[in-house]
């Protein structure tokens, strides 16, 4: 998996939030798979690193958790986005867009000089 990119903490939280927004309540394993799929398998995720991020988001009140049944009848802990989480997602998404836009300008081939 040499050409896959590692995920770092800050962006992982944003990905989790976005995933939960689009997919609705999901368990940890499902979130991890979904992030990998969405990235087009470009991201390599050590699934273990997901759990501290989930804990942190839950402590912040952005997500809530509940035990439930998975699609193939396994017991699993499901995470869902809270209202505060939705707000946080919007906020973070905007700030991320801004950051990438700024970086894009730096990286774009300079037109006048």
């Amino acid at each position, binding site marked *: 998996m040499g050409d896959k990119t590692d995920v770092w903490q800050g962006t992982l939280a944003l990905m989790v939030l976005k995933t939960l927004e689009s997919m609705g309540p999901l368990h*940890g394993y499902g979130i991890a798979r979904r992030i990998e799929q969405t990235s087009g398998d470009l991201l390599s995720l*050590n699934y*273990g*690193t997901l*759990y501290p991020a989930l*804990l*942190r988001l839950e*402590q912040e009140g952005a997500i809530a958790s509940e035990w439930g049944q998975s699609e193939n009848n396994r017991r*699993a802990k499901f995470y869902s986005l809270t209202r505060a989480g939705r707000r946080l997602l919007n906020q973070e998404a905007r700030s991320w867009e801004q950051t990438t836009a700024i970086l894009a300008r730096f990286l774009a081939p300079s037109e006048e000089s």
Partner: protein
Amino acid sequence: MRRIRVWLLKIFGIVPSQQQEQDFSDELASHLQLHIDDNLRSGMPPEKARREALLKLGGVERTRQAHREGRTIPFLETLLQDIRYALRQLRRNPGFTVTAILMLALGIGASIAIFAFVDAALLKPLPYADPTRLADVAERGVAFPRSNISYQDFVDWKRLNKVFSSLDAYTGSGYLLATPSGVEPVPAARVSDGFFRTLGIRPLLGRDFYSGEDQPNAPATTIVTYGTWQRRFGGRKDVIGQTITLSGAPTTIIGVLPEGFHFAPRGNAEFWSTVHELSSCEKRRSCHNLFAIGRLKDGVTFDTAQSDMAGIAKQLEIQYPGSNRDQGAHIEPLPELIVGQIRPILLVLLTGACLLLIIACVNVASLLLVRSESRRREFAVRGALGASPTRLVRQFITEGLVLVAAGALTGLAAGTIAMRLLLSLVSKDMLDSMPYLGHLTLNTHVLGFTAAIALLAAAIFSLTPVLRLPTAALREALNEGDRGSAGTLWRRLGANLVILELTIAVVLLVGAGLIGKSFYRLLHVGLAFEPSNLATLFVSLPRNTNNVSPPSNTYNKDEAMLPVVHKILDRASSLPGVSSAAIVSVLPVSGNGNTDWIRVVGHPFHGEHNEVNEREVSSGYFKTIQARLMRGRFLTEQDDSTRPRVTVINKAFADKYFPGEDPIGKKYGNGDLASDSIKEIVGIVDNIRESSLDEEIWPAEYTPVNQSTDYYFALLVRTEGDEKSILPALAAAVHQIDPGIGTNDEQTMTQRINSSQTAYLHRSAAWLVGGFAALALLLGVVGLYGVIAYSVSQRTREIGVRMALGAARGSVYQLILKEAGRLTLAGIGAGIVCSVISASLIKKLLFGTRSWDLPTLVAVAVLLGSAALLASFIPARRAASINPVEALRAE
């Protein structure tokens, strides 16, 4: 907001929760199961499906650890672990723990209690607006650096000065208050109209005096203190406007002072009135009975004020040479007047308490050191098992902190109790003169002080063992045979600490010795009268100036007063158990004051103020107090208003004004030798101590009460038996004559002397410093014992070898005692040097004792030396009784 939520959750997460741990384990298990299911579905064999899932997770235990750390704060968690471990350690050694905590509590408690007094008296600002700008304003006489100001001078000073934005006068006073249970003399004060405005005090209820309310035609009004309002008027709001009878005069209550108000120079005053009705004294410029307070104008310093007022005094001296000759001005900050006297005592006590605290800290630190020695192997093992050096150091610091926290809390409790106890030992009269002590509490200052000394102690305790922590020598420490060299550094350090302790103990002991000796000297100062078996009380005859509903008889003129005085004397002397009775205008040992300015007939005179104490006495006075007649005769009943005025003078008077002459038959009068002031000297009496115990003896004159009397005087009776039991009967006897006569302050003469301010301050200083010194001695000797005992235990093998090689028990004794003796001598030597230096700092507290009093120094050296000998004898005996065979086998 989000951050706070996270931190709160994390802090609660410190409490380890089995349920959370279990919950996460379940979650991980379900995660793996889901992954394995997926892998199986994609066709992997079960074994591979499982391995792949675990691999992708990145390790179950690692994930669990990361999750656990996320739930809480790792630093705090290990800290808690350290604390738990420290508590377990301390519990396992209850002897050490209790000793250490007790010693710390003792030192901290003593410091806190004394600091609370220092805070109340010296740190807390006085309860006035901008108190540092307030000045005590008084006159400066030849004999008194600070003397009363006369009302006429005050009026001129107020008019002429350019340095005070306001200047107001006050004087003590007393009223006979009509209460349902009879008349009661109450202390009061009279002030000029702006007095409270100058202080910046606004009444809690009602109003302040109007300006002009101190003028002669103003109606009689009074402001009561908060305490009086609560006690006498039940705290009722309708007290404002109520009319009460003060010494027969109807007076309207117009205000109540705030609760926190106090004014130490008139600390006991319950009623504050204006000087609207001038006394006969206040009408004369030569009669001084007031003090004043002034508020400095912006930018004016006390020095400027002093020179401005001195200039005005000079001007008045030229204008009124008869009354104002040599009358200067005296200006000092008001706080200085109020707390100036108690400051040196409090500072000495605080120093004593802090020295005690240092000894306690040193002792506990050396105990910790001893323990760190015996725990070398434990730490070596923990280090070998992988504990990092910082973790080991932190463990030690935590133990120090736990000890200090326990010590500080215990000390705080002990200090609070000690504070209450000390305060309850302060008599009512003393509290009146130091009203600021009434608000003694555990305030933020005191708590801050506690925190500061606790931090300091914590720093000491954390650092000492760290210095010795054998992190570098782990391997050697694990080695069994290493013990021989282990204690050297500690022995050297511990020995120095013990020398420090002994030095401090010597300083405190010498201080206590000197102060104690001063107190003894003070109580054994020559009185020239016999204070035992003397019962005394004060009598005030009711006067009435307005003639409005007099409560009973009034005694305004000498002719009316004399018969009742004689009736009181007759009744008092016929009480059972009384051998004689007398009255005097001012009791002995009250202090110099109430003076007369004299001029001897036939001696050269240039208008100087020859100040002598003036006392009006009944004919039986000298016999009653058993004063010795030096020459001539005592006063008799026949010396009355029909005869020429006579006087008895004391020896100091004769020595000062009649050197080389026989004063008997000589005459003197006031400055202008007015014919009605001329008196003939008929006798010389020994120097009866009129001054307070530590003041010098002044010339004094004793004039017959039959020729001039006053409405306020002291009654004394000499009893055959116990003088205390007669006090109630004495007051009752006076009231039988006329219930309208006020009596107060019944005390025996001995009580009066013992509770006089001078004796009181010296006594409390002696007891407190003595207590500190005793504790310091105890702790110092315990410290010495600890060091020697430790040294003996470290040298067991060495001593065993010596004895095996033929050393006699005597030489072992010598070996150990020599070591102890060296430390003791060093401590005593250093202590003597330090105490001679520090004793000169407490010179103010000494009376009749030099700061390098040889007997005290020798006594302290002997006391400490013998105590130290005793303390080192015990371990020396243990050393001498070592069985060489066992000592060598034990290794």
